[in-house]
């Protein structure tokens, strides 16, 4: 298991390094480690999106609570 992981990470790094060398692109952090950071960015976006929508719903509920109290 551990060995597999090490092999995998090495392959991913080599692949990423090969690409960076071939294309000389920027923002290299996101391209290292097999671009796993892109997946993290995607997950963060979805989390932020759902969270923002829940906050928006929360505000709506507060509004209704205020009007029903009056």
């Amino acid at each position, binding site marked *: 298991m551990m060995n597999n992981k090490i092999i995998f990470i090495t392959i991913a790094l080599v692949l990423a390094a090969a690409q960076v060398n071939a294309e000389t692109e920027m923002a290299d952090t996101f391209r290292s480690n097999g671009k*796993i950071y892109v997946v993290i960015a995607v997950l963060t976006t979805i989390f932020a999106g759902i969270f923002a929508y829940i906050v928006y719903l929360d505000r709506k509920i507060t509004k209704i609570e205020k009007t029903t109290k009056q």
Partner: protein
Amino acid sequence: MVLLAYTVVGGLLMPVPRLDILNETIRNLYFHVPMWFTMLALYGAAVVYSVKFLRTGNMKEDIYAKQFTNTGIVFSIMGMLTGMEWAQFTWGAAWSNDPKQLGTAMSMLIYFAYLILRSGIKDEEKRARISAVYNIFAFAMLIPLVFILPRMVDSLHPGNGGNPAFSKYDLDSDMRLVFYPAVIGWVLLGFWIASLATRIGILKYKSEND
């Protein structure tokens, strides 16, 4: 909840095919693609409620249609943003005027117009009627814009222009093991959030009409 927890953990740790350029970002398949599935399901449900409203004239159906569309828009925004992030590191640019991107952007604008249309009409009955009709047309536009037109021209996006959707990954049973639960999980989450929004909408409607 269980499905989504499984999706996130499995989606990050389960073995995936090693592909050039995509590398680990293939895992985005479990997150980016179900966003659009969820959006489509929510918009579809909104159409059902719009038709129901036109048949019955029950204001409740209008609230359902509105809130399901709202939630669908939230998912479409998340789908678009995640798609752009993915494209930035695989296609080389977040926005490359790809037919798929343009088609989805247009369909998003059509649905934004739905919100503007709703806020522009004061009379409740009229608003519900016109927006129900608009919603049905919007969905009818969405299908060709997102699923048919991009397929007829060259596109970078999988599933378009002789670029079949999952053919490369379809063979991988490990990915299916996560992908199908992921789709179900995200769609259920979408419907749950939409039903919360609807309940709030109905409460608001009641408190305004007492």
